């Protein structure tokens, strides 16, 4: 019945941690099949239908911006945080990077993005 959705998605950041891996700085991330997503704008909040999984996601502006940035080019966590801070004119708190890292892990578990390991 219905779909699995958490009200916390309405808040600014997505906090759910899925695994004990860390999204360490060696990884770059890119969006997976971004062009297949159906996105509807509700005054700055977004409903997103993901055809591969059949799931509906609920994103705020920053959540969607992450997917957009990662669709343009593979991006590391550091570069992503940089770009987000500039776009949203934030002075990054020390916890910002950690929160974005958790979001990336969540997106990865949902199949919205995939990680591309850099070869050392």
């Amino acid at each position: 019945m219905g779909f699995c959705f958490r009200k916390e998605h309405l808040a600014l950041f997505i906090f759910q941690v899925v695994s004990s891996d860390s999204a360490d700085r060696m990884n770059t991330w890119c969006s997976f099949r971004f062009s297949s997503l159906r996105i509807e704008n509700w005054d700055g909040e977004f409903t997103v239908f993901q055809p591969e999984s059949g799931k509906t996601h609920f994103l705020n502006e920053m959540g969607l911006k992450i997917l957009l940035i990662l669709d343009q080019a593979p991006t590391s966590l550091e570069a992503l945080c940089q770009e987000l801070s500039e776009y949203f004119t934030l002075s990054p708190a020390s916890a910002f990077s950690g929160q974005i890292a958790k979001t990336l892990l969540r997106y990865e578990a949902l199949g919205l993005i995939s990680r591309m390991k850099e070869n050392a």
Partner: protein
Amino acid sequence: MRVGQLSRDTFRTLLTGSGLRVKAGPFNLSIQTRLPHLINQLHQMYAHYSLVNDTEIVEFHVRVISRRSIRRPFARLIQFEVDSRSPFPPVPAEQALATLEWGINLAIAMRINHLLLFHSAAVERNGHVLLLPAWPGSGKTTLCTALIHRDYRLFSDEFGLMDPQSGEFLPLPRLMPLKNQSIGVIRDHFPEAILGPEIPGTLKGTVAHVRPPQESSERADETAKPRWIVFPKWSVGAAVRLEPLPRSEAFLLLASNAFNYEVLGETAFGAVTSLVRNCECRKLVYSDFDSALKALDELTDG
């Protein structure tokens, strides 16, 4: 021809024989039982239902039958069956009408996917549908019962049936189960309502069913487009408030409210998007019917 036009004997013959075949909105039902008290109750409560003849297809074949229990050999138990499958455990015989109605709900919810099914009351006024989604504390059935004894045509107290392509809602007028205190409240405020027997001891407490008004059964083929979505919340002593609801929140609530949202995938996403964009979305807080009805009248007059 309607059930109420059948003699009691003919009615009994159908139910105990090959089945009573009746229309329920867009679906046809076949009902069989040998239980005398249930037969009597159905003759009264299904009086306005149209009969369906043998040459039409019936989609749901249901029965209520007696059951014996190894553990409780002297208890009078009965059980609901749809196509000889029993989705519920046996219950005391007095609960036959309640288990029949809930069983039909379940069968519809499990089989129907060409329509989007909202867990919702739906009523029509001024040619458009007002949708009242269920959520905890909503009291949707009680509010729906109140509305249809005023100016509103009953579509359903349980299922908002929507065609995802056209966006239209389809009526499914059936018995409306009131629970516990709401039974007394409706009796007091709407003495014209026809209520079935009070059935104590069900999983949801004491239940009594309201018969759908004749007009709603007669006009069961008249669909309508939705225009208002109101999330009701009954709150003791609260002053009536009809507030706008952000559309994003309405989408979230409706998507989790629909029984088969996920099953319909992208079709459902598109249909709920259109629905929310095309309707006025409100939240209604109320504690008495008169002010709630007044607020809804104002909304649906506009």
